[in-house]
Structures are given as C-alpha cells and as structure tokens.
C-alpha cells in the first residue's frame, strides 16, 4: 500500500509544482482577449511572442544578457580555478588567513553591500557600462570553494609527473589541473550562467542607459509600460525563461552535482 501511495503523491505534487510555469507558457500563446480564460486556448497564436521580439528591443536585451553572462562565467571560472589551485596545492605563508578571508565573504550577499558597492563602482567609472555589469559580478567565493574541494581530491602523483618533466607551476596548472577539472568547470558554468542571466538587482542599480538593459530589466520594465497587456508581459517572461530552462535540461545532471556539494562536504 505505502509503496504505491507515495510515488503517486510525488507525481501529483510534481505536476502541481510545475503547473504555474506551464500555465504561463500556454497563456503566452493565447490571443490577447483569451488570456484570462480558463483552460485550453481556443486558438493558438505566436503573435504575442512576435510582437515582443519585434516591437520591443527584446533581442537587444537578450544579447546584453548573453554578453554579460558568458563573459562573467568564463572569466570567473578562470580566476576561481587559479585561486583554488593555489589554495589546494601550493604551500605559502598566509594560506590559512587568505583562505578564511575569502570564505568569510560568502556571508556577504549583494543586497547587503549594494549601496557601498554602488559608490565604489561609481568611483571607478563603471556606471552605465558593460564593464560595470560584468566586473563586479565576477568575484565570488563560492566557486573558489567548490573548485578547491575538487582539487584536493586530484591525486598528487599526476602533478608530480609534470614536475619531474621540469614543468613550472603555470604549466602544471594549465596542462594538468585544468584539463582534469572539466567536469566541475562544466557544472559551475551551468550554475554561473543561470545566476548571471537571472541577475536583476545589480543591473538595475548600475545601468540607466536603455541600450545596456539586460533581459530581466527589460521584462520587469514591461510591467510599467504594458500594465494590463498580460499577453505581452507573459510572452516576454517566457522568452526570458526559455534559455534558463534549456540550460537546466541540458546541464541538469551537472547542476545537481554542483548543488549537492554546496557547503556540505
């Protein structure tokens, strides 16, 4: 009895959990006058999506988001893996202090330092620029921590072979450690891409120029401009969500692996 009941319950709850997302997808494909009608649309239409893509600079917003997310992800992974390699493998004075210093920044979230970070970014001339969107988003201890955990588990012998071949530290990192970290880098890239594609608060704070608007700003801006045109707002929301769902489905296993290691091991 129990064996049958719980899996069925799980399936039912799973459907309830995704129902709001499916509902939005279906509603975005309804004609404007049908958007609040309950149930299946009488006619399916791509007009809403088309309007949002053509009449609102949605492609521009997506391009901005893509530029920012991809750049942050690539640069962050590179920097983080370098730092993690040093922390996991090299001996140097002050290692403990530097490590705990880096880790303590994990407690600080963006909303907490938003105001002073804005002042720093302003001093550095980062207001209203791609650099302003990208540079402050790169630095985060989370990736350093996960990569360090991973590097601690790579057998030392692999590196020692390279050492005997006369390779310097850079070569050891570049030709031994980095290729070995492909799986963990892949997991983290899924995570970083999602976080940056979904970022809202920092872009909202650092940019005013409409040409620099990222997708989340563009979508939330629809609220004010198209107050009751829900068919269009939902179409924009769907467009913003599609890349994240695609990345999730494609990188699901990797994402789950990365999540599971979060602060646990």
């Amino acid at each position, binding site marked *: 009895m129990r064996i049958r009941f719980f899996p069925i319950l799980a399936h039912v709850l799973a459907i309830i959990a995704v129902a*709001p997302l499916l509902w939005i997808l279906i509603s975005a494909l309804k004609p404007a006058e049908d958007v609040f009608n309950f149930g299946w649309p009488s006619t399916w239409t791509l007009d809403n999506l088309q309007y949002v893509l053509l009449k609102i600079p949605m492609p521009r917003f997506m391009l901005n988001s893509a530029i920012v997310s991809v750049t942050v992800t690539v640069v962050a992974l590179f920097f983080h893996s370098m730092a993690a390699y040093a922390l996991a493998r090299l001996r140097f004075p002050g290692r403990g202090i530097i490590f705990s210093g880096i880790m303590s920044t994990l407690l600080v979230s963006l909303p907490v330092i938003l105001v002073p970070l804005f002042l720093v970014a302003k001093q550095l001339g980062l207001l209203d620029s791609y650099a302003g969107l990208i540079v402050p988003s790169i630095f985060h201890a989370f990736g350093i921590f996960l990569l360090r955990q991973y590097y601690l588990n790579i057998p030392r012998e692999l590196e020692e072979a390279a050492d005997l071949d006369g390779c310097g530290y850079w070569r050891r990192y570049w030709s031994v450690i980095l290729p070995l970290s492909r799986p963990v880098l892949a997991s983290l890239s899924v995570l970083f891409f999602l976080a940056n594609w979904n970022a809202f608060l920092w872009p909202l704070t650092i940019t005013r120029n409409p040409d620099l608007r990222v997708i989340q700003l563009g979508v939330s801006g629809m609220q004010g401009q198209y107050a009751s045109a829900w068919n269009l707002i939902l179409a924009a929301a769907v467009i913003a969500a599609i890349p994240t769902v695609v990345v999730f489905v494609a990188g699901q296993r990797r994402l789950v692996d990365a999540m599971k290691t979060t602060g646990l091991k």
Partner: protein
Amino acid sequence: MTRKRREALAAYAFLAPDTIGLLIFVAIPMVLAFGVAFFKVDGFGNYQYVGLANYKLMAGDDQLWASLKVTAIYVVTFVPIAFVVSFALAMLVRNHFKGIGWVRSAFFLPNVVSLVVVGLIWQFLLVDKRGALSKILAPFGLGDVSFLGTPSLALGTYVVISVWFLMGYQMLVFLAGLKDVPKELEDAAQIDGAGSWQRFRYVIWPLLRPTSFFVVVNSTIGAVTGLQAFDLVFVLTKGGPARATSTVVLYIYEQAFTFNNMGYAAALTTVVVAILVVCTGLMFGVTRGGRFDED
C-alpha cells in the same frame, strides 16, 4: 631562488586576480559602509560629516521599523515552512520509483527561472477576480480575495511563493545529506523492531543534523539579505500594499536610489550586518554548530 620561495610567489600570482577583486568589490564596500554611515551624501556626491545623525534618525523612522517587522515575520514563517516542505519532498523522492527523475526536476524547475519571471508569473495568477487562482477558489466562495492587494494577506502570499521557488534547491541539499545516512543503520534499526517513525527519529534525524543546520542558516541569511528579499518583492508588490511587504533590503534600496539618502542607507546596511552576525552567532550557539552528538 629557493623552491619554497618560488612556490610562494607562484601561489600569490595565482591568487592575485580573485583576491584583489574580492577586496575591491566585497571587502572594501563592506568597510566603506561603516564609514559612509557617518556622512550625509547628496545627489551630487558631496559628503558632509554628520556624526551619529544617521543612526539617531532611525529611532523615529516608522517605515524602518515596519520593514524590520516585515523581515522578521518573513524569516520566522519562511524558514520553518521551507524547511519542512523541502525535507518532506526529499524524503518523498529519496528512494527510487518510476519517473523519479522527472519528479525531482519538476520540484527544482521553479528555481531555474529568474525571480523577476517568478514575480510576474504569480502576479498574473493572482490578478484580482480574473486570475487563475480566483477562478479556482470561486466555488469555495473565495473568488473575491485579493491575495496581493490585502495588507494582511500579501506577506503570507510572498512567503508561499518564496517556498515554491526555493523548495527544490533545499530538497537537493537534503537529498545530498540523506545519501550519507548509511542504509545498514536503518536496516539494523528495522531488524531491532523500529517502526518508520522511530527510524526517522533516532537514525535519520540525528545523522542529518549538519545538513539541517546548513539549511537553516542558509535560508535565514537568504530570507534577510538574499535576492528573494529584493527581486521578488520589487516585482511582485513594490513593498505594498501599505508597506506590508517592504523588506529591509528593499527599504535600503529605496532610501539609497529613490530618495538619494546614501549615507542613511549605508547606516541601515551596517544595522542589517549587525543583525545577521547576531543571528548567525545565535544559531551556532543554540545548535552547537549543528554537531552530531547531543553532548
């Protein structure tokens, strides 16, 4: 150059980009907040030293106290509900059954879309009278309830939406913790005649303490200062109605960027940091760091 020296130099070079970045974009802003708190900053960026004036202002700032109350209520409702829901989901999808992959993904999926999209989705579902939820509840006589428009209901609605958004993530954390509970221990307890409740209470629960501790700390910090405390309310209600969903971080943002009171906002930031430090300290004290044993 000795080998030791070379190794150290290489290490510093490897660490430099991230360490400098974290210094400039995390550590310095953090310290700066405590400095700027003593200044009045106008819209043109002129700083004027005002001593403790920003802190004195807080005593009479009713909206601040309202926001602190909102955040407090949010924390004490969101954290336990999210804990129970995500733990229950983890137990539900712990053992294999047909379609388990899809079920786990389904619970996690809300966490993949952005909080902006989440906010818009629920705004649409909760549109007064015409929205899907009103139509579902109409047969029960609840079709006229305005979930986001009634001050007494808006905060609860925000809690429920946050739980929906975060339950999948916390479920994964619990699943990872459950993986470390040895099956043999549970089997042994079963052979000794322990029922499912007893196995849960005396085997799984104690072994899961570090995980539970991590989840509680993490979700408390998230509830006070996470993006869920800003993005979601910003899109969903803008802090309304009647400031019923105005979280502290939203209030700080408004002070800084709507009213241009950077100095005051910085002072508020330091207060939130102090609250967080105290909260985390308390949780460490009460749970003794989430250690395994009771002694």
